[in-house]
Structure formats: structure tokens, C-alpha cells
């Protein structure tokens, strides 16, 4: 490249990540989504320090403060910016803690399902033969059941609980990762660097996880992002149907379900604000995931 050219070409030393970041920043909407996702994540992680009240501590609640409209002040001088629910729980605190539950269920299940699913998918692609057939048959089987029904039955059997919801979500989600990982790995394993690694007689697990896996990451990340949003939605739906998280640890979905009873009596805030919080979170994650797919999917690259 000659210095005489006055077209400011992208600097030669741009790392893949920088390129990725530049392309990602192309979409204002996706950047906005990312900002919201980060904000929501900070809120959820810092909940105990920023929420005005611990909504799970029954000693801090007073039913005499129940169903106050937004902006009301409690007997102790605490302002309920988003009102209170029937137990006198500050909705703002409830939403922040609810985000925490919803996000941890979503992210947790997506990560666990991702690890299990990707590992199985990679093993299938790399091992081939009977192992591959067995794993992929299982994947087909899993995907041939509607996720909502599987989750519904699992939770009916196991009962309510954050851990149980995560387990149910992992069971319905892992197969998607496995399929994606396998098809990505099938492409990658024919590449030269894998052959080179194999020629060096590196241990198989090392080839698998140190060489193959990193190169299969982009599609898995895309799937993962979308699955987090799906998991949060599914958890909310299950909680709405009365099979999700327990009343003492309300997620956004449960807050919406509890508050819906009050919609007709005009106490909209008990259901409406958690609904908005859930909506914004899911849409933001999907905006990010959607754009990630465009950026990371070579087929659609401009």
C-alpha cells in the first residue's frame, strides 16, 4: 500500500475484533440495544445496592402500604416511584429484582445449555460414526417436541423453583446449540489447521476444544444471544401459567401475572411497568442478536 493513495483505507493492522466492532456499530439500533442490555445487566447485578427496598424480605413490607399508586410515600417516608403491589412491595425494587431473576434464568440456562449442547455437537462432528448418529438422533428427538410443552411437563413434575425452571430451559434448549455446533464444526474440521493439528498428534480433546471450538464460536454466539431472549420469554410465559418461579422470588413474568388481576380495577402500574421492563429487555437483546447474525454470518455479508 502506497502512501500516495489519499483514500483512507482501513488500517492494515485492524484486528478481527476491531473489524467486528466497526461493523456492529453500523446499526444505531443494535448499538442502542447493546447499551440497554448492558444497563439492564448492571441493574440486575447491582440490585441489592440500588433497589430502594429488598422486596423479598417480608419484614420490610407492610400490607398497609399495598396498592399505592406511583409516587406515593410510605409511612416510613420511602417514595414508591412506580407504586406498590398488593403486599406493599415497592414495584421499582420488585422490577429490579425481577430483572435479576429473569436475566439469571435466561443467561444461566443459555450458558449451561450452550456448554452442553456445543460440546455434544462438536463431539458429534469430530467423532462421527455411531456417536454422531446417536447424538444427532437425540437432537432430532428433542427438537421434534414443542419446547413449551416439554418445559410445561418438566415443571409440572418438578414443581416451581428458579433451579427447576433453569433445568427445564436447558433441556429444551441444548439441542439447538448441538445442531449449530455440529454443522459449524463439520465445515471447520476439513480446514487445513485442523489437519495440521492432527498431524502434530495433539490429543483429540485438545484439537476439539482448543482449535475447533474457537472457530465455531460466531454462530454459537448468535444462537446464544437469541436463546437468552427466548429463555426469558419462555420463563415469563411459564410463570404466567403458574408453573415458573415461586411467589417469593418473582420474575418479571410473575410480576406481570400477579398484577394483571388489577388491570381492570385501574391499578395498571402493578402489571404495566414489569411488562415494559420485560419488553425492553427482550427487544434489546434481540436487536443485538439480530444484528450480530448479520455481522457474523458470512453469507449475508455485504
Amino acid at each position, binding site marked *: 500500500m502506497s502512501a500516495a493513495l489519499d483514500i483512507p483505507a482501513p488500517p492494515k493492522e485492524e484486528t478481527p475484533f476491531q473489524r467486528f466492532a466497526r461493523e456492529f456499530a453500523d446499526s444505531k439500533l443494535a448499538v442502542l440495544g447493546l447499551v440497554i442490555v448492558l444497563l439492564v445487566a448492571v441493574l440486575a447485578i447491582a440490585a441489592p445496592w440500588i433497589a430502594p427496598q429488598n422486596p423479598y424480605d417480608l419484614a420490610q413490607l407492610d400490607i398497609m402500604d399495598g396498592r399505592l399508586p406511583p409516587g406515593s410515600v410510605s409511612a416510613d417516608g420511602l417514595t414508591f416511584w412506580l407504586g406498590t403491589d398488593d403486599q406493599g412491595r415497592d414495584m421499582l425494587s420488585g422490577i429490579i429484582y425481577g430483572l435479576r431473576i429473569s436475566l439469571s434464568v435466561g443467561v444461566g440456562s443459555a450458558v449451561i445449555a450452550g456448554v452442553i449442547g456445543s460440546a455434544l455437537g462438536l463431539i458429534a462432528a469430530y467423532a462421527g460414526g455411531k456417536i454422531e448418529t446417536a447424538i444427532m438422533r437425540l437432537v432430532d428427538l428433542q427438537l*421434534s417436541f414443542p419446547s413449551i410443552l416439554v418445559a410445561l411437563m418438566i415443571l409440572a*413434575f418438578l414443581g416451581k423453583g428458579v433451579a427447576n425452571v433453569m433445568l427445564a430451559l436447558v433441556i429444551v434448549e441444548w439441542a439447538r446449540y448441538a445442531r449449530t455446533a455440529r454443522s459449524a464444526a463439520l465445515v471447520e474440521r476439513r480446514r487445513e489447521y485442523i489437519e495440521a493439528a492432527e498431524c502434530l498428534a495433539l490429543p483429540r480433546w485438545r484439537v476439539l476444544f482448543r482449535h475447533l471450538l474457537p472457530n465455531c464460536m460466531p454462530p454459537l454466539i448468535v444462537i446464544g444471544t437469541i436463546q437468552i431472549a427466548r429463555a426469558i420469554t419462555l420463563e415469563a410465559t411459564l410463570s404466567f401459567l403458574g408453573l415458573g418461579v415461586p411467589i417469593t422470588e418473582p420474575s418479571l413474568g410473575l410480576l406481570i401475572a400477579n398484577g394483571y388481576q388489577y388491570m381492570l380495577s385501574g391499578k395498571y402500574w402493578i402489571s404495566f411497568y414489569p*411488562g415494559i421492563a420485560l*419488553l425492553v429487555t427482550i427487544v434489546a437483546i434481540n436487536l443485538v442478536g439480530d444484528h450480530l447474525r448479520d455481522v457474523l454470518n458470512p453469507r449475508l455479508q455485504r
Partner: protein
Amino acid sequence: MTTWLLRRLIQAVFVVLVMTVIVFIGLHVIGDPIDILISPEADQAERARAVAALGLDQPLWKQYGLFLWGGLHGDLGRSFVFNEPALQLIGGRMPATMELAVTAVLLSVVIGIPLGLYAGLNPDSLLGRTTMAGSILGFSLPTFWVGLMLIMVFAVQLGWLPSTGRGETAELFGVQWSFLTRDGLAHMALPALNLSLGNIALVLRLTRAGVRENIHMDYVRFARAKGLSPARVVLVHVMKNILIPVVTIIGLEFGSTIAFSVVTESVFAWPGMGKLIIDSINVLDRPVIVAYLMIIVFLFITINLLVDLLYTVLDPRVRLENRQ
């Protein structure tokens, strides 16, 4: 082809068997339907009688054996709650769910494909961008929440449409349908829209992606060069190629739509199979739960089969033997 079919069949039978075992054990662990159904005023002797009447006094393996034996003879047992054959009970609710799901799928095609075409042909127009952004909402919004909002806005606040139930029905082929009466259609509008929202977004995005991919292909250029009208190029030549993934997805999603009607039916009190299964889980009505799940599995397998067959029709390059 025959081996392929046979393999599918064996797989299906295996799936059903595993599922029934899990459901039997799972429901046994949760509790006892008699505890829920019996009058609280019943004494211990009456309770024992009721347990025996439903065959729940037998050991679980024996109950399962009896179920298998009945199943082989086409009898999936009688509902504990309604004392009617489980299949008959579900069959009675099936038309309600089917018409809802079919309407939802039709809506997604009627709305999704034109919007997707537009967004694909005019990706940078305001409407095209809005459509794409809107489609993210479409698959992001939780079905139940949208349902609640639809009721609040259209039924309670505006009062345009009824909020619950199936409305008047009329008979066709010996079955009661809502879509044949005006009142029934009014009742169906909100739940069908609710159920179709995710599918609309899906079809829209697939169509758009298909258009984007195909529009630059050689065959489109040739067609244009031949002087065909742009409308014909898009509606005939491009559509033909887009339709394959769209049909596949619609087919595969039809099963999920039926499964997801569980949520919509709960919100809108739509008396279909989904509502029945939720109620049945709540009262541990095992025969109904098992029969429902078997029907769903059967439905899924049939749909997958049909989609694969349709594939070969639409795209002769695909050979069944190459697929699992």
C-alpha cells in the same frame, strides 16, 4: 423411501413409549388425582373406594401395563375427571384448536409474505426498515403479554371485539366451527392474531432474506434481460425459490403453533385442546395428559413427514434418502 419411512415410524413408536413412561412416573410423583377430585367431606372409606374405582390402588407398573394393553386396543383410558374416553374428549376440543392454529398460520402468510417482499425489495425505504424493526417486536413480545394487552385495548377499552370463548358455532362435516358464523369470527379475531404474531415476524423475515438473496442471482438477471416485467420476475421466479424455506418453516411451525395455543387459549378462555391440557395437568388427569401428548407427537411426526415430502415436490434436487 420405504426404509426411510419405516425408520421414522420405529423412532416415533420409541419416542411415544419413552414419553408415556416419563409421564406415568412424573404424575405419580406429583400427587394423587383423588386428593384433588374427591369431596373434602368424604371419609376415609369413601376415599379408598374412589381410589380403587380409578384403578389407582394398583402398583404403578401394573397401571402402566394396563394402559399399554388398552393402548394396543385403541383405548387410551377414560378421563378421571370427565369419565369420558380421553381420545373422545380431546377430539371434541380439537376443532377449536385447529381452526385457531390454521387461521393463525393463514394470517402469518397473508400478512408476512407481502410485507417481507416489500421489505426485501425496498430494504432502505422507511417502511422497509420499520417493518424489519417491527418484526423484532413480533418475535420478542411474549404471547401472553400481547394477549392481555389485546384484551385490554380491543375488548375492554374499545369494546370492539369479545374477549373470551368461542362464540356461536355452526356445523360442518358433523363438527362445530366458529369461523362459519359472524359471532364466531369476532371471537376468533383476537386469539388468532395473538397466536400468529410470532409467525408473521418469522415469515416476514424469511421472505425478506429470500428476496435479498435471490434478487442478485443470475436467473433474475436473465429474466430481467429477457424483458419480463418486474412484477412477474418477483411474483413468479423469485417467489418460487423463496417459497421452499417459507413452506418448510410454516409447516414446522404449525406444530409449534398448536403447542403454543396452550398460552393463547389460557388467556382467551378458548375451549380447545391447549386449555384442556392445562386444566388436566392441574388435576393430574393422567389419561388425558398422556393422550394429548401422544396426539401432539403424532402430529409433529406427520407434519415433519409432510414437509419432507413437500420438499421433494418443490425442489426435485432434494432426495429423501439424503435426509434423516
